[in-house]
């Protein structure tokens, strides 16, 4: 982790209403690396991506991206920075009234006045990179889940971003598509000289491509290191998460006020709070 940091978080706190989501997170994402961010569902991983992209602001703490402090940037400044970022969304988020080609062309058309022939080359190059040049004319509804994810990936990298966010890129895909997406993430990151932040539950696939990983629980980073170091972590929580054990520091049972026997024999009606 000696390389220069592209993204840095310092003591970041964030809460939604009374519920704290992040409680003092420090993180350092080195330039050129693929860094994975893992943790239980609802643990604040997507929130962290949104904080790094500037779509959410922390209640306290500092977030620096490419040397710029996000809290000091105005609206235009954040937008200028986002033109150098790409994001692959969990459900692809393709524009349903545009074809695959137009989806990939969308950021280019909005930000540059390019000659149609140049735009066509740029878009087809990205679609070729994800193996879907032949599907350029298809509408999102005509694409399978895996193909849609690949078109969304082509769209995320069409502006040659310095920083790419992946929000659960493997969710809901068949094993072949998962393998393809994982390979593409590694290949695109290296070919573009980008930095990637990968939020995922898929431990095996994520560790196969990540250079470094963080595990988030209870609003804090509980373990970090290379995939090998994380596997060898002595944190019980990290071991429960990576091993997929149903019970452990994160309990199987949602807390109840009284014991099981009383609840079964009690007079409270079904569904009533007991």
């Amino acid at each position, binding site marked *: 982790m000696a390389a220069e940091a592209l993204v840095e978080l310092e003591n970041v706190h964030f809460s939604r209403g009374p519920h704290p989501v992040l409680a003092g997170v420090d993180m350092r994402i080195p330039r050129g690396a693929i860094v994975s961010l893992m943790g239980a569902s609802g643990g604040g991983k997507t929130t962290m991506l949104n904080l790094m992209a500037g779509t959410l602001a922390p209640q306290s703490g500092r977030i620096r991206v490419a040397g710029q402090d996000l809290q000091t940037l105005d609206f235009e400044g954040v*937008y200028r920075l986002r033109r150098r970022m790409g*994001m692959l969304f969990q459900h692809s988020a393709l524009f349903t009234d545009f074809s695959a080609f137009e989806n990939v062309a969308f950021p280019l058309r909005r930000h540059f006045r390019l000659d149609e022939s140049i735009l066509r080359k740029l878009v087809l190059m990205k679609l070729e990179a994800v193996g879907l040049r032949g599907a350029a004319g298809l509408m999102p509804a005509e694409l399978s889940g895996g193909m849609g994810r690949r078109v969304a990936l082509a769209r995320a990298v069409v502006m040659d971003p310095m920083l790419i966010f992946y929000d659960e890129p493997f969710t809901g895909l068949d094993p072949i598509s998962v393998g393809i997406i994982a390979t593409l993430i590694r290949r695109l990151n290296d070919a573009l000289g980008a930095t990637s932040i990968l939020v995922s539950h898929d431990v095996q696939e994520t560790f196969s491509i990540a250079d470094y990983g963080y595990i988030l629980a209870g609003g804090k980073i509980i373990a970090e290191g290379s995939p090998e170091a994380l596997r060898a972590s002595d944190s019980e929580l990290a071991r429960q998460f990576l091993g997929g054990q149903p019970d452990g520091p994160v309990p199987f049972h949602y807390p109840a006020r009284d014991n099981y026997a009383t609840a079964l024999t009690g007079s409270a009606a079904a569904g009533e709070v007991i």
Partner: protein
Amino acid sequence: MAFLDFVPNLGRQVLLTIPNLGAAARFLLRSLVAVINRHFSIQQLLKQVYGFGVRSLLLMMVAAFFTGMVLGFQGYYALVRFGATSALGTLVALSLLRELGPVLTALLFAGRAGSALTAEISSMKATEQLSAMEMMAVNPFAWVVAPRLWAGIIVVPILCAIFDLVGIFGGYLISVPVLGVDGGTFWAQMQSNVTFSGDILTGLFKALCFGLVVTWIAAWQGYAAQPTAEGVGNATTRSVVTASLAVLGLDFILTALLFT
């Protein structure tokens, strides 16, 4: 106990509603101002004008035609008792131009285009399309909301003018060929009693206000919807109900201000 609960519940509702109104007002301002953003596109605006306007045209014309015919019948029934059927043209025209044209156009627009707009924006939110736009540094207010809002403002007065015309024609068809009112009197009375600025323009101004309010409510309900299937459904229902009530309430205020 129920009464004791009523007071805090009312207070809670008021406290919840006020920030919502503030957020909706800020949403309107951002959308109107987004017209000067570089991501605002005239092509998008024209596409929405086509979607809202041309696709609502047949519905408006059919509704207007029947409304005009009913006005012809009912007006004749009321006026014939006083031997005043010569005023039928004026009655049909003024009813349509001042009230029924703007109000019915806005209500139909809320049902036809407003509900579709809410469903479209809330689905875009639920499928993260608006977030994706934000991530591509494209302002969703400029690309999605502003063209739809301005299209509503442009389209509703035009639809209202067409509604008025077709309605008057429907009224004429019933009054003159069917009920036997003199055609010359029908048009002459209308010509001498309807003023351009007092009746026609104020009616169209009402339609413009309704267009703004209906599109604003529809877009806001879509934007503020819960990003779930149930949220999309609820938002669409709320959009039509709120917009319809807002049109009727606003109509009372505008009538009191403009025609007194």
